[in-house]
């Protein structure tokens, strides 16, 4: 791996941008490159990067990735997808190192939705100038995958997998883009799995437009390689009576940052966000959300749980914005952290920004260790310490996945949380 010290002329950003130099610049891409050329890497002095340090970014030289070995993808699928009857039957989209693996992607022939692959990066919600990582996606991305569910169509559940494979020299980066449109009264449920091995950087942007009365459930498992860096920006726009639910489990990655922007543009829309960050070792994981209530009668709730052991570092920055017009808003936000080690660190900033008066908004945050009294209660009944500890941790996270509608997703996410909790603590 090639490392540069800060201040050296070949910074991470420069090495990335040199990959797109001389390319035929589409307008969006051109704008993004111009924006990035004129801006600095965000530092902790930038308010929204207050708790997450991007210094690693400038310590790497970014390179083009090697071609994917089909063998690796095949093996992963056999172990994780084909072995499970429920998962293997789902229409799936398989990507590896930012490329669509057509031979495995049954979603391309699925009749429940339309897929279009466009050879440029475009979008309507996340603007190139909106923030650093989104701009990077515009600048570096090569294609846009457009998924549309037509009016009143119930598309069921689809599986989306992104595998990343690092290489020996330099840091490969993957900037793919997924735009999902769910039209009026339609329904879609997505299970997304991020996995891989080695050191790499992923920076996808996903845009979701949920039409009037439509229903979208997004279950995401971030289980990337423990050496990898993962940023993801998600932009959601909800029309009236739209329903959005997201469940996120973040446990892979050396460094991750998940940004979620939800705009409630239609009355009576409903957004729910449940997340668990389960970290160990020296992992750093950040969830940053902005829920914007722009019209009356919308409802949102956020529930983020952190379980931090070893020297891990968890961050949650959540913001609820209520526009002056958004009367009768009901917004709730909850952040809980369980610190299992003295070297673990949690930083949380649950923020309310409210300009309408007839609203019910609340947020709560708690930080603490396992309750001694609860441990005592269980141990007094003959349960050994380790097991008692597991029971309490399980109880702490179980609630986050309890409300998942999709049975396959529920099973998968539960397994990912529950089974492992027992394993790695004893």
């Amino acid at each position: 791996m090639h490392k540069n010290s800060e201040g050296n002329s070949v910074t991470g950003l420069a090495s990335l941008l040199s990959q797109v130099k001389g390319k035929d610049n589409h307008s969006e891409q051109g704008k993004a490159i111009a924006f990035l050329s004129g801006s600095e890497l965000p530092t902790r002095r930038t308010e929204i990067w207050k708790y997450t340090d991007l210094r690693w970014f400038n310590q790497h030289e970014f390179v083009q990735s090697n071609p994917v070995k089909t063998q690796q993808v095949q093996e992963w699928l056999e172990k994780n997808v084909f072995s499970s009857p429920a998962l293997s039957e789902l229409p799936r989209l398989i990507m590896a190192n930012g490329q669509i693996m057509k031979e495995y992607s049954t979603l391309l022939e699925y009749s429940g939705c339309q897929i279009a692959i466009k050879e440029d990066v475009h979008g309507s919600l996340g603007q190139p100038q909106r923030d650093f990582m989104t701009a990077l996606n515009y600048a570096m991305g090569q294609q846009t995958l457009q998924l549309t569910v037509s009016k009143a169509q119930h598309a069921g559940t689809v599986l989306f997998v992104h595998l990343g494979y690092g290489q020996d020299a330099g840091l490969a980066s993957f900037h793919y883009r997924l735009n999902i449109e769910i039209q009026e009264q339609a329904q879609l449920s997505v299970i997304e799995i991020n996995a891989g091995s080695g050191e790499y950087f992923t920076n996808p942007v996903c845009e979701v437009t949920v039409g009037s009365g439509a229903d979208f459930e997004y279950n995401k498992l971030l289980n990337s390689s423990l050496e990898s860096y993962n940023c993801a920006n998600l932009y959601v726009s909800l029309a009236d009576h739209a329903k959005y639910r997201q469940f996120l489990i973040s446990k892979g990655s050396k460094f991750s940052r998940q940004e979620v922007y939800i705009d409630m543009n239609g009355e009576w829309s409903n957004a729910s966000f449940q997340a668990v960050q389960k970290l160990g070792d020296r992992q750093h994981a950040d969830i940053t959300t902005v829920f914007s209530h722009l019209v009356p009668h919308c409802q949102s709730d956020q529930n983020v749980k952190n379980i931090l052991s070893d020297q891990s570092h968890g961050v949650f920055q959540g913001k609820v914005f209520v526009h002056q017009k958004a009367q009768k808003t009901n917004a709730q936000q909850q952040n809980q952290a369980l610190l299992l080690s003295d070297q673990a660190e949690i930083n949380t900033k649950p923020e309310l920004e409210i300009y309408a008066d007839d609203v019910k908004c609340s947020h709560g945050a708690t930080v603490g260790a396992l309750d001694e009294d609860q441990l005592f209660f269980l141990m007094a009944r003959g349960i050994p310490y380790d097991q008692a500890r597991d029971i309490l941790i399980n109880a702490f996270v179980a609630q986050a996945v309890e409300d998942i509608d999709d049975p396959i997703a529920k099973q998968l996410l539960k397994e990912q949380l529950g089974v492992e909790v027992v394993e790695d603590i004893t």
Partner: protein
Amino acid sequence: MTKPTQDEALLKQLEPNAYKWGFETQIEMDMAPKGLNEDIIRLISARKEEPEWMLEWRLKAYQLWLTMTPPQWAKVGHPEIDFQDLHYYAAPKKKKGPKSLDEVDPELLRTYEKLGIPLKERAILAGVEGAEEMADNHPPVAIDAVFDSVSVATTFKETLSKAGVIFCPISEAIRDYPELVKKYLGSVVPQGDNFYSALNSAVFTDGSFVYIPKGVRCPMELSTYFRINAKNTGQFERTLIIADDKSTVSYLEGCTAPQRDENQLHAAVVELVAMEDAFIKYSTVQNWYPGDKDGKGGIYNFVTKRAACRGARARVSWTQVETGSAITWKYPSCILQGEGSIGEFYSVAVTNGHQKADTGTKMIHIGRNTRSTILAKTISAGKSDSTYRGLVRMLPRAKDARNFTECDSLLIGDQCGAHTVPYIESQNSSVKIEHEATTSKISEEQLFYCQQRGLSKEEAIGLIVNGFCKDVLKELPMEFAVEAQQLLQISLEGSVG
């Protein structure tokens, strides 16, 4: 809901929002020329007859200030301040030692009368000898009155000195107790801490100095009354309170300013030092001129307040009622260093008209078993914005530390904003942090209940707001609690719509 026509009538009746302390005193003033440079600092230092080390300290702060830029992160937004367009020193010309009330400048007397400071006390305030003995039936509150850049008078000095308590203007303390000042000044808020604290360190003109010796319980409440009077001035006061081992003190701070079209700057620094088992209670009723109903004029209140709990079991309690100022930018903080030390923050912030308040606290837990409680009540009305911004930080050595935070916001009308920005940072698994916040409006049911029993809408709102703030108001000393309640009522006048 009442009909809009009724509401409009009510609104008209209540406008303009009465600021009854908005008068200006016509008095002969001794002013420094406008602008800020080393010469002005030398001039201030010379007027104050300060020793050389103090001047150097100021100049060092000035050098630091030159390298800094005004902070932009607070959710307040104001036009850039021209720091060269201010007078940094303004003092009423005082005749030497007036013997009776007749000799005191009648304008100065009238000012105190209008501010509602009782007669006997007023006699003392204007520096009349012998009035102290007259003040027999008055509740024992010692007052230091700061008029623009100077302290006009300090009362009950004799009674206090019997107990060993030092309570005097800070300019006197620099002269008379240089060792204490040297040791503690800037030890909690260093000169270069932030833009406004650096400015204050360079040009501060007066303020109070309090030293409570070991084991002493201060026999009376101490109080400072700040008044900005002159035009185009900034007030930069500096308060330093030191409570030695096992001592107790309660300190009150009040402030007003005349009604003017232009904005005036108030950038104070308050430092508290609490040693082992000491207890400092610091209460503020902040009532600077908030500007008129169109948002013109008013005070910019950019204040740095910080307490250090140095000794074991030290306790500091901040209580504030913020009703005034066009812009408030204030975070009374506690550095909880001593084992088992306690920090408390109780706040009511009311904004109306075009006021903007960004206020909160910082609790830095360093020592074992430290505890902090934050209770912040925010009320926004009119076209105002108020933000609670608070930090709770648990450092690795703060074993078993504990924090509880509650922030509630009340919105009156749909033109205002209320924001909550808590920062919670923990590096320790043995700590417990709880934070909760709610935002809501006054419920129709509660209003209906009160109005049905014959209260007007205004009275009903006053009653409900007072109930909303009760947990904080009960922390105020008696004399202030009544004043604060009335202030809340007045501040919210004209907000119903």
